[in-house]
Structure formats: C-alpha cells, structure tokens
C-alpha cells in the first residue's frame, strides 16, 4: 500500500510530467534571470518575463490553463467557468485586450518630456526614418515564410517586424492582435535587443558616419513654452487618430499620460501613471507574456528566425535614422549631427544615451543627449503609427 501511495505521489508530481521542452525552457528562464539580475539587461521587464517562463513551464500547475475557452474556444471544457481558468491566463486577458500595453503607454507619456521634440520638430522625421527596419524585416519575414519549417503568414511577419520599432508595449500589442502564438518569442526578442542597444548601435553608427559628422556640435535648443507642451499631446492625438484610427489606442494613452504631466493640474494622476500604475501593469504584463513561452510552442525553428529578424529590424532601423540624419546634415549645411538619427529607434532613453556616448567619444566637448531625446521620443510616436498601419493592413 505504501508503495502504491509513493507511486501515486510520484505520478502526480511535476517530475513525472516534466517534458524535455519544459526543462529547456526552465533553464532558459534561469539564463534570462541571470541576464536581468547580474547583467542588468532591462531588469524591470526581464525579471517578470523570465519568472513567467518559469511559472508556465512547471508541469501540472495549470497556471495558463484555459478550460473556459476564453482565449481558445476549442480548448473549452463543458461546464467550466471563467474563474476555473489558470490565474496567469486570467491576467493575460489584460494583454489580449490591449489594456496593459495601453496603460504602459500612458505611464511612458507621463514620464516623457516632448520639449526637445518641440524645440526641434525635424526630430519627428528622424523618428519616422528609424522605423525602416520594421518594413525591411517584414519583407524578409514574408520571404522566409516560403520556407516550410518556418512558414510565417503575413500577419505573423508583421508582428515580428514590429520588433524593429524598439518599443516593447507596441510589439506586445501588435503580436497579441495579429499573432498571439508568437507573443512570447517576439516580446523576449524585443526586450532583449532593447537591452543590447549599447552593443548593437555603435558599430552601425561608426560604419555609416564620417568622423567629421560625428564631431558636429549642435546649437542650443530654443525655449519651449508651457502652452506648446499642453497643446502638443492634444494636437498629435487628434491628427494621428483622424489619419490612422488603428493607432489611436497607443497614441491616445501616450498623449493622455503626457497631458497629465504637462497640464499642471493633474499632478496626482501624473504621479500615479508614471509610478504605481506602470509598475503594477509591468508586473502583470511581464509575467503573463513570459508565461506564453511554453516549451512546446517556443522551441521551434521559428523562434530562431524571430531572433534573426528582430536583430535585422533593429540594425535597419538604426541605419534608417542615421541615413536621414546624414541627409539633414547635408541639407542644413552641417548643423545636424547624424548620430542623433540612431536615437529615433525609440527605446527611451537608452538610444539617446548611445548617441551621447558615441558623440562624446569623438568630441569630448559635445553634449548630444538633449538633441537626441527629440528623435528618441519621436520614435515612440513613429513606432505607434507603424503599428497602427500594420494593424490596419492585417487586423480584422
């Protein structure tokens, strides 16, 4: 009898049900935890994502179970209610419904100072050019889709391509709408490459610019009035939403957060958006996105393709911003340092810091940080517009 009990305990334990894919993913989660905690690679997101991977790959826990068929009606079990679903599956509804990415955008808006952009509006064009990688990656992904083992559909190709926007919440929103089955690898690739920006960008910056261009000192930015800062979020939202309604959720919440910050009468709302709220949502978003990386779906040739396409997208986006920066350098007679173009890839403020660091390396009296912040915050708008375009093309 004792033997039977021990046998039963073993059979119901996670060890008996642990598949090799789950084991590999558990090891991957340890690696991501190491990168986040020790190497400090985007720790605020990578820690919850890595722990989400760990949670989802523990067998028999049912954390992502969906007996009610909320996400996949084909998995529905007769008589099951929504509250029978796994706790992570229930929280994941916030990702699937776009609530979390939008709330994160609101927090980003409340933290963002669009002053450098208003002082130098041409920054917006740099932010647009730095979305080039999205479309290059899209074309390559469609081409790779012809390979049977990979077989990306156009909607999946669009979801992968948005990694080039270097904006985590945007990538998550697009992937959750167009290719939820690829959400885990896309989110991980997006955040991993954002953390690697200081390694990825400098060689491209060096390759595409001359030493003379890198040494250019830009003149001090003009004063921006409070009125301009208040009108800006309202005007941007109205224009973008009228032109591209599918971009309205992201732009709308981004600009709402920014209005909280700038209007001067909603300090408490601004404070909540940029601290408590964004932190709470980051925990839930990160953990549940990580939990979508179940071993059997994650360990495929497609994941390697996504990692490759993500890197390609980042490189081309950086190149797009730099090349337009070079064009502006020529047009303005050498008044614009092309290095600020690479900051157009979004990833605030890391990409702007890279521009500053590389610029200082070639001219120790050069401070490009505030100039690079313009394209940097423009990149957030640019990637949201690009996401809106892809959702319009491939969404239903």
């Amino acid at each position, binding site marked *: 009898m004792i033997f039977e009990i021990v046998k039963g305990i073993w059979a119901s334990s996670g060890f008996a049900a642990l598949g090799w894919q789950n084991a590999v993913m558990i090891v991957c989660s340890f690696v991501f935890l190491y990168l986040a905690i020790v190497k400090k690679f985007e720790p605020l997101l990578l820690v919850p994502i890595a722990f989400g991977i760990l949670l989802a790959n523990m067998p028999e826990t049912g954390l992502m179970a969906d007996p009610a068929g909320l996400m996949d009606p084909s998995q529905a079990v007769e008589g099951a209610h929504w509250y029978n679903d796994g706790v992570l599956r229930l929280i994941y509804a916030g990702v699937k419904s776009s609530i979390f990415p939008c709330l994160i955008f609101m927090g980003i808006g409340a933290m963002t100072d669009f*002053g*450098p952009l*208003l*002082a130098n*509006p*041409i920054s*917006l*064009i740099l932010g*647009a050019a730095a*979305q*080039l990688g*999205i*479309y290059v990656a*899209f*074309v390559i992904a*469609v*081409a790779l*889709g*012809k390979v049977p083992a990979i077989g990306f*559909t*156009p*909607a999946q*190709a*669009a979801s992968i391509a948005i990694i080039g926007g270097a904006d985590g919440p945007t990538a998550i929103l697009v992937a959750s709408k*167009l290719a939820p089955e690829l959400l885990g690898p896309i989110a991980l690739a997006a955040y991993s490459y954002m953390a690697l920006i200081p390694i990825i960008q400098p060689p491209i910056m060096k390759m595409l610019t001359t030493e003379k261009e890198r040494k250019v*000192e*830009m*003149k*001090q*930015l*003009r*004063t*921006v009035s*409070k*009125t*301009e800062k208040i*009108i800006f979020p309202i*005007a941007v939202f109205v*224009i*973008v939403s009228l*032109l*591209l*309604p599918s971009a309205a959720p992201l732009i709308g919440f981004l600009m709402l957060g920014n209005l909280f910050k700038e209007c001067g009468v909603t300090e408490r709302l601004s404070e909540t958006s940029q601290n408590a709220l964004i932190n709470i949502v980051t925990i839930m978003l990160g953990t549940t996105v990580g939990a979508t990386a179940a071993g059997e779906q994650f360990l495929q040739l497609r994941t390697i393709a996504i990692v490759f396409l993500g890197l390609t997208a980042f490189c081309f986006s950086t190149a797009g911003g730099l090349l337009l920066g070079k064009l502006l350098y020529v047009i303005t007679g050498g008044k614009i340092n092309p290095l600020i173009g690479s900051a157009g890839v979004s990833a605030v403020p890391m990409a702007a810091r890279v521009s*500053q660091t590389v610029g200082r390396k070639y001219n*120790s*009296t*050069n*401070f490009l*940080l505030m*100039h690079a912040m313009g394209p940097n915050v*423009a990149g957030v*708008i*640019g990637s949201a*517009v690009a996401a809106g*375009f892809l959702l*319009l*093309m*491939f*969404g*239903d």
Partner: protein
Amino acid sequence: MNFLHIIDPNAPMAMSQALLVALTGIAVVLLELALLTFIIQIISKAVRLFSGKKKAPEAVIPAPSGRMDPVLIGVDEPTAAVIMAVISSKSGIPLEKLAFRTIRILQEEEK
C-alpha cells in the same frame, strides 16, 4: 475598416505585394510624422505670436556646450550630462554660465 478584401493575413503573400505593403508603410509613417512636424511648427509660431516676448523662459532645454569638464566619481558620462542639464533647466541658468567641478555618487557610509 480593414483590408481583408485585398490582403489575406493568413495566406502566403507574393514578394511584390510584400514590397508594396512595406513601401506604403514607410511612406505612411514618414508622411504622417512630416505632417505633425508642419503642424507643430504652426502651433509653436501661433503660441509665440500670441504670447509675445514678454514671458520669461519657462522650460529651457539646455544643450550643454561642454566648456566644463567635471571630475566624475562613480558616475558615468551620460548620467553626468543629465544631472548638469537638469540643474541648468531647474535653475534657469544657461549651462555655459555654470561650472561643475565634481559630480560624485555618495557611498553608503556617507549617506
């Protein structure tokens, strides 16, 4: 509004169609942000026209000229640049009139 009648998001796509979508996409982003650039310039001019020159600077965005060369202890260069820019912005004193000798992070025992 969607484009499902033109593009099937789940069916294989011809390369020519993918290129067309990509070109349209980058054109949409460029045009939309170019339009925003234009509108921001109009708003800025209108605001400055109405407010005139009577107002004192409210939010100066400094672009440090780099004449100072402070000693950095436990602080990297980008962080030091941010600190100097913030001090200049909050105090309203142009950066070229400020001198930073040392920027040092406090050690645990010094707090």
